[in-house]
């Protein structure tokens, strides 16, 4: 950006400017207690952000240990086979249940959703806090299993292995059960908020697309998570009481467990990706300074994905002993769920067309998302095709596909959203240069790590393997180098953001030129979000805002004929 004037005009700005010095939600009430018992969605969102990023760090450490072990094909002094098995289980469980499922909805969603709605809070603030503490409880129980016998079942807990292993499956499963309730309550809160708290002027089809994404996610959380709950309860009963519903040794059916598990866990990947798509929809419009292209198609595609995602769980079971008939149905539906995702990608591209594209850090994450999610989505076609799936199932190809969608999609969008809303959260701008360097390193490191795994997988390397045939060593070494690069990139991102908290330039109310409601209040927002209840207009009317060099941010254009009203 050329010519950013960093001086802020302190006086006479009124609402909508930097509020670091004055009353804002961060200064509204002091002391630890005012945080721990807060009902303010913004504070709860921040607490979520802290614990979720800590989980990300923990899961990342497990990943680095795994990748380091895999530098050599044989035994390793770093860890033995059992420890390795526990490592990949913990990496999966922590990343999925603790980080990525609550990541965008609970952390970013909690902070942003009421702001986007022009509301003062979510519908049930106390349930919101309860949901946070359920998360904490669940996380403590689940991580407690590390001390009492870290689980080695893989995050999928397949029976009968999970009923016979001597590790502490019950603790992990009970923890995930509690986390499930946290997720359900978050979803419930968001659905009711979106239904009942929309401001004047915000019809369903004038909602920001991030809300559509969150709404789709919330439907999934509500409809799918209870099934996970009962599955885990039955698994606990299986281990503790020998109930015999999933354990073939007692006359049960292990394939039924897989149906139960994937009925939740497939929609769960859409719980992870839908809000990410919502973030991308916001960002691509703002940073192209152009109205989003094909709003209704993107909105409908979110709901289409949410519904279709319930119909495809069987594609995790193509080689597991599922019948041919079910395989055919699930394969077909799997291909159908690709369509709405493709539609979104095309719409985002069309939004960029003839735009005015600002390559700020969040936009770099958008471009990164389009690239990585493109690969992640297209490799889904390989896995959806039954005959090819037989070869690729349970190989590194699946690992790579999953990471391209979940990291390349969700985490990249999460980082983009974090950089986008960071000024609003803390009232500070981060260093743009380091932000970009971080984004670039993450992109390069990620591709090096996981693209190699596509090749390795299609060459036939089975996943979850402590030992591997030495033919695959070059791939593994390259992948590990990529993982280290990725880690360095993430450290740069973290340091840059943390640094900004203390040294960052005070952020203007609207640093990016967004037209959604959260940019119409000060950065950071006051305790009640808005001094007066705002009236919602078109959330993508970004052209109504113009850059004002004096404040380093965007201000609303004056009606024609008058000078800008800053």
């Amino acid at each position, binding site marked *: 950006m050329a010519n950013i004037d960093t001086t802020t005009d302190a006086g006479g700005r009124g609402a909508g400017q930097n509020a670091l010095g004055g009353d804002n939600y961060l200064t509204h009430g002091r002391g630890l207690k005012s945080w721990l018992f807060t009902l303010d969605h913004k504070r709860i969102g921040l607490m979520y952000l802290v614990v979720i990023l800590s989980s990300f760090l923990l899961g990342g450490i497990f990943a680095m240990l795994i990748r380091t072990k895999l530098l050599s094909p044989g035994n390793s002094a770093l860890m033995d086979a059992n420890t390795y098995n526990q490592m990949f289980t913990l990496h999966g469980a922590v990343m999925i249940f603790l980080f990525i499922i609550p990541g965008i909805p609970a952390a970013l969603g909690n902070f942003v959703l009421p702001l986007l709605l022009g509301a003062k809070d979510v519908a049930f603030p106390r349930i919101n806090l309860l949901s946070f503490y359920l998360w904490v409880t669940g996380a403590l129980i689940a991580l407690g299993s590390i001390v009492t016998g870290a689980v080695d079942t893989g995050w999928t807990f397949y029976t009968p292995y999970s009923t016979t292993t001597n590790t502490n499956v019950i603790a992990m499963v009970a923890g995930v059960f509690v986390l499930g309730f946290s997720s359900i309550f978050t979803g419930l809160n968001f659905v009711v908020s979106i239904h009942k708290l929309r401001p004047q002027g915000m019809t369903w089809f004038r909602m920001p697309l991030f809300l559509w994404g969150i709404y789709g996610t919330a439907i999934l959380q509500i409809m799918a998570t209870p099934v996970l709950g009962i599955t885990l309860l039955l698994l606990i009963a299986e281990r503790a009481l020998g109930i015999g519903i999933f354990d073939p040794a007692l006359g049960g*059916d292990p394939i039924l467990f897989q149906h139960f598990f994937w009925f939740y866990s497939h929609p769960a990947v859409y719980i992870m990706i839908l809000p990410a798509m919502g973030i991308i929809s916001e960002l691509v419009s703002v940073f192209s300074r152009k109205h989003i292209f094909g709003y209704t198609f993107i909105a409908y595609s979110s709901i289409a994905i949410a519904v279709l995602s319930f119909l495809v769980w069987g594609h995790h079971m193509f080689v597991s002993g599922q019948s041919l008939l079910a395989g055919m149905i699930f394969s077909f539906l799997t291909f159908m769920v*690709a369509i709405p995702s493709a539609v979104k990608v095309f719409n985002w591209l069309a939004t960029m067309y003839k735009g005015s594209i600002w390559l700020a850090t969040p936009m770099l994450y958008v471009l990164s998302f389009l690239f990585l999610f493109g690969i992640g989505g297209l490799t889904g076609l390989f896995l959806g095709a039954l005959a090819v799936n037989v*070869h690729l199932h349970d190989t590194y190809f699946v690992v790579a596909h999953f990471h391209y969608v979940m990291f390349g999609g969700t985490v990249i969008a999460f980082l983009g959203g974090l950089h986008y809303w960071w000024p609003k959260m803390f009232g500070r701008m981060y260093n743009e240069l380091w932000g970009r360097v971080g984004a670039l390193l993450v992109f390069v490191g990620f591709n090096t790590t996981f693209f190699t795994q596509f090749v390795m997988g299609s060459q036939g390397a089975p996943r979850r393997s402590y030992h*591997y045939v030495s033919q695959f060593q070059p791939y593994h070494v390259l992948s590990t180098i990529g993982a280290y690069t990725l880690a360095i990139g993430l450290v740069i991102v973290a340091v840059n953001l943390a640094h900004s908290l203390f040294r960052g330039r005070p952020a203007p109310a609207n640093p990016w030129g967004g037209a959604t409601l959260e940019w119409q209040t000060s950065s950071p927002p006051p305790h009640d979000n808005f001094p007066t209840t705002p009236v919602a207009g078109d959330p993508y009317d970004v052209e109504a805002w113009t850059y004002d060099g004096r404040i380093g941010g965007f201000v609303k254009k004056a009606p024609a004929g008058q000078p800008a009203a800053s």
Partner: protein
Amino acid sequence: MRLGHELIGRLLGWASVQAEGGFWMPVQGSTGAVVVDRIFSLVLWVSVFFFVLIVSLMVFFVVRYRRRDARDEATPSPRHNTLLEVTWTAIPIVIVIVIFVWGFTAFLNLNVPPANSYEVLVTGQKWKWLFTYPSGHVDEDLHVSVNTPVSLVMTSEDVIHGFYVPAFRLKRDVVPGRYVKLWFRAVKPGEYQIYCTQYCGTGHSDMWAKVVVHEPGGFERWLEEASNFLKTMSPAQAGERLVRTRGCAQCHTVNGTAGTGPTFLSLFGHQVALEGGRTAPADEDYVRESIMEPQAKIVAGFQPVMPTFKGRLTDQEVTAIIEYLKTLK
């Protein structure tokens, strides 16, 4: 249809897939592999096309429409275009349906064995594979004849395992409590790797075995010879083999640690403490009785859970096992 597949396969197949294995796929060891690889390359080229399209448009837009001044505005352009939306919804639908149909029909073929196929019973257990041939011979590797359809009837003894031969593009989970079937026709003599792909615990990544594809006639010779291992091997060697392949090793270790049953190490010729305070000398008769009537004498500290091997092991085989036990000092 078939001709169409053939044609598309030829057109696309050359670049990414070769019979000897290429950048993406390993060597093609079976008829199924050829079919799978064709679909793989179709999907690959469709993906490459769309990926290049998306990324090059993205890069082009970024370069062409880059914001040079903070006040720059977007050039006015439509906010939606229903025709365009419908087009880019419909085209992918058509493409994925083609991929689905082809993938499914090939999958059906991979799953329905020809009537005349040669059946082998595959048993997965922690952590090895056992292959039982129609003659009753049990082996730790899968031996087959080239160009012969072989169907595998698979089950598991404990947890779920995954039977995977990358060169044959063949994979199926092996589930306890049920039989699943798979088949293939190997096209080239040689040795191919077998993995376990369904995570099954400590030794999951060691559950390797080989498919040995014999020249015509070679398989029969091998089976003949292998089945006669009692004659061709020394009794102790044969006994060792029986202990491994007939399930003894599942409960009885040979390294001194107790499993479900007592260890075999330093067993023969010593006194054995029995349940109820008695002892018995571990001689030929004791071992024979323990195999045929396992409940007759229970070793102190162990559960009486061993099934009888009456009718499952011949006299000669029991003798071989005894000879083997003698060597475990």
